[in-house]
């Protein structure tokens, strides 16, 4: 240990305080720089569709015509991305519908019903689910789920349903962990007051605990949705990638990440086709920023109301 009676002169302070402080501050600011660089590059690549190839934003976002290989003589390449956007929304939307009830129930179980069981057994279970690589999820989906859907529900197996089911398993750890965090910080007084009034545990969970933790739970749900929106490989392996808006949940469909992975390597940079794929990547970036914005709104509302 340093001699604490030593006089702290300028040199000493510089060596033992300011240098370290400066370094960590720089690294903190580096995070901002990395994010900005990413945003900058994606915007510059993703906006080429609109500025260089003169596709209107309206056509890109709201047209269902995806004919990027069409000759200019026949009306030029058409790069309407609406089908992919709708596909992404449907697949992740259904995944959320399937996953949320179970994930939240599990979070309640872990925090309110059996915390010991939750910590010792379920926490590791969730961590292993998180650790399973997405290609492995896709591989199981392709080998087990697709044939299962085909035999049980008919159709080809490659379907919106299969994609949503695979995603619902992949996003549950996110929802459960965030929801469990929100549930575990509820002060014990709330519960005790409720029990003292003669309420049962279920009644307490439903009337007191759940509403109090709702902002946190919603944050988890939105984060789950963000994860579902951006997942690429596992989904692509099971949805069939038919470029159309699905009529039923047993129809095959396509989403933003699938078309990017399928076409990116095969198209030359600088072509309208390739630029349109970059625009979709930019769209994914913007969407994930929107999700964060939503989470902030939820957080602000949550803290304002309590």
């Amino acid at each position, binding site marked *: 240990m340093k001699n604490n009676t030593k006089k702290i002169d300028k040199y000493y302070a510089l060596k033992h305080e300011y240098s370290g402080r400066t370094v960590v501050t720089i690294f903190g600011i580096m995070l901002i720089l990395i994010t900005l660089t990413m945003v900058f590059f994606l915007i510059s690549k993703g906006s080429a569709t609109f500025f260089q190839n003169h596709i209107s934003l309206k056509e890109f976002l709201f047209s269902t015509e995806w004919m990027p290989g069409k000759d200019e003589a026949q009306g030029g390449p058409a790069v309407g991305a609406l089908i992919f956007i709708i596909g992404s929304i449907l697949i992740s939307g259904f995944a959320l519908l399937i996953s949320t009830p179970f994930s939240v129930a599990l979070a309640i179980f872990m925090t309110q019903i059996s915390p010991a069981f939750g910590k010792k057994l379920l926490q590791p279970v969730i961590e292993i689910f998180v650790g399973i690589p997405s290609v492995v999820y896709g591989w199981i989906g392709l080998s087990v789920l*697709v044939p299962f859907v085909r035999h049980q529900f008919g159709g*080809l197996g490659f379907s919106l349903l299969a994609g949503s089911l695979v995603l619902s398993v992949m996003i549950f750890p996110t929802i459960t962990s965030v929801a469990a965090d929100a549930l575990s910080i509820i002060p014990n007084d709330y519960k005790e007051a409720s029990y003292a009034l003669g309420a049962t545990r279920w009644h307490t969970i439903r009337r007191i605990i759940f509403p109090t933790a709702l902002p946190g739970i919603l944050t988890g749900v939105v984060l789950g949705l963000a994860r579902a929106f951006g997942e690429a490989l596992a989904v692509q*392996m099971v949805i069939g990638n038919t470029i159309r808006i699905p009529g039923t949940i047993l129809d095959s469909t396509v989403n933003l990440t699938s078309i990017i992975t399928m076409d990116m390597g095969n198209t030359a940079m600088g072509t309208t086709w390739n630029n349109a794929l970059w625009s979709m990547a930019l769209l994914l970036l913007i969407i994930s920023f929107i999700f964060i914005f939503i989470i902030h709104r939820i957080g602000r509302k949550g803290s304002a109301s309590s």
Partner: protein
Amino acid sequence: MTKFKPLLIALVLVLSLSVALVGCSSNTAQPTPAPAANSLTGSATAVGSSALQPLAEKAAEMFMAKNKDARVQVQGGGSGTGLTQVAQGGCDIGNSDVFAAEKLPADQAGTLVDHKVCVVGFATVVNPEVKVDNLTGQQLIDIFTGKIKNWKEVGGQDLSIVILNRPASSGTRATFKKYALNGAEEAAGQALTEESSGAIKKALTDTKGSISYLALSYVDSAVKTLKYDGVEPTVANITSGKYPIWSYEHMYTKGEAKGVAKAFIEYMMSSDFTSTITQMGYIPNSDMKVSRDK
């Protein structure tokens, strides 16, 4: 308070930082070709087509066994990536399944020199349960454009047809569309699309009534090949010009090929390598009795 722990952490920190920095700075240490008197030295990188990748990797391995001081690196990434990179000078050789003019803008494609290293044949394939052996060109077009929807319309059993496509940007699909479908535009929103030949094969064996197309190197007993206008998709029929669904595998260089890249491309097209080409299911140029320019 223990003394060694903060020290340890500092050490780990410094160590990791320095390694990271070394890692970052050593990027400039690209292997530079040193001029030598007799033997071939230097390196070349080939990027692109995943269909050509296995053959090119094998060729690189054999080439480097012969020329100990030369390095050839083969990377995948897709035909589009290969053509872009070679046109921008990012690599020495751009591998492609299609002619450069089909992917690149004309001004960029013009700077590239084409080396047709081999030929690859494609077969119309169906799920083994389909009881059809032959399709005419017109029937094939009608199937892929969605006019024919059931196998019984072309002499098979009562089973609906499921089309499995490769992505629109794939070279295999472009070739099939050009030579088998006569350029007919596929009906939108009907076909399942699989990213790769392996995925097509898996989906084809699993899906009843399915039809697709595969390079001959991927065809095995798990799938059933169909005759095209009565002609079997065999190597003999392709080389003699009877069977039209085939394409070249290209290696593009920016300007004339030089140094290791030149030697490597020459090796791939030399008689030393033809047996390997045949063994892997491709067709050597020297066997072809017909040729194409675009």
